[in-house]
């Protein structure tokens, strides 16, 4: 499935138990901040920001929208919590940056920074979101796609 994405568009991949949201990075860079270090993540024009939540419906889409808006439009850094931090179970969205994202349901949220995996619900396990010229190519997804403006 190919999903064309304008610069100001977000696409929601809506499942029955979880939701993904996708925007293009537009070649921007993003800060990844730990308690002791700062790393700059550089992207290509067609790379993607993918956010995932374990919720569905309007509330889920609004949350993902805000997450992606904060990161891409407002330059909010990705603040890294150490493994086992007590806030981890309460975090509502996870985010992937790059040319490829694979959804896996059996990983601990946020513990795979070196890989192209992102945690999601079991229903979305195996979904792949790949960068493509002017949009995204999505594999192994059979749900509903909703697009809206990211502004």
């Amino acid at each position, binding site marked *: 499935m190919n999903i064309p994405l304008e610069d100001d568009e977000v696409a929601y991949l809506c499942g029955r138990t979880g939701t993904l949201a996708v925007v293009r990075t537009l*070649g921007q*860079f993003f*800060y*990844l901040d*730990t308690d002791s*270090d*700062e*790393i*700059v*993540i*550089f*992207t*290509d024009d067609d790379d993607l920001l993918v*956010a995932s939540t374990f919720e569905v419906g309007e509330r889920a889409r609004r949350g993902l929208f*805000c*997450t*992606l808006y*904060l*990161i891409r439009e407002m330059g*909010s850094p*990705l*603040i*890294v*919590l*150490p*493994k*086992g*931090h007590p*806030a*981890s179970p309460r*975090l*509502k*969205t*996870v*985010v*992937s*940056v*790059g040319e490829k994202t694979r959804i896996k349901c059996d*990983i*601990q*949220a*946020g*513990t*795979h*920074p*070196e*890989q*192209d*995996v*992102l*945690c999601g619900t079991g229903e979305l396990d195996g979904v792949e979101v790949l960068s493509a010229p002017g949009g995204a190519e999505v594999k192994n997804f059979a749900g509903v796609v909703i697009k809206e403006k990211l502004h």
Partner: protein
Amino acid sequence: MCTVGGGPDIGDVESIAPKGYICQDCGNKFKGMGRRPRCPSCQSRNVKPTE
């Protein structure tokens, strides 16, 4: 990469392998990942690896 918007949770940051860079225009030193590095301070692409 699996991070969380607002409060990203990456437990194994040591496994990330960023490169060190220095900007040839403004002298800014930074760590980065990706194919097209540029200085996050002055936006210049005139950067070189430091290692």
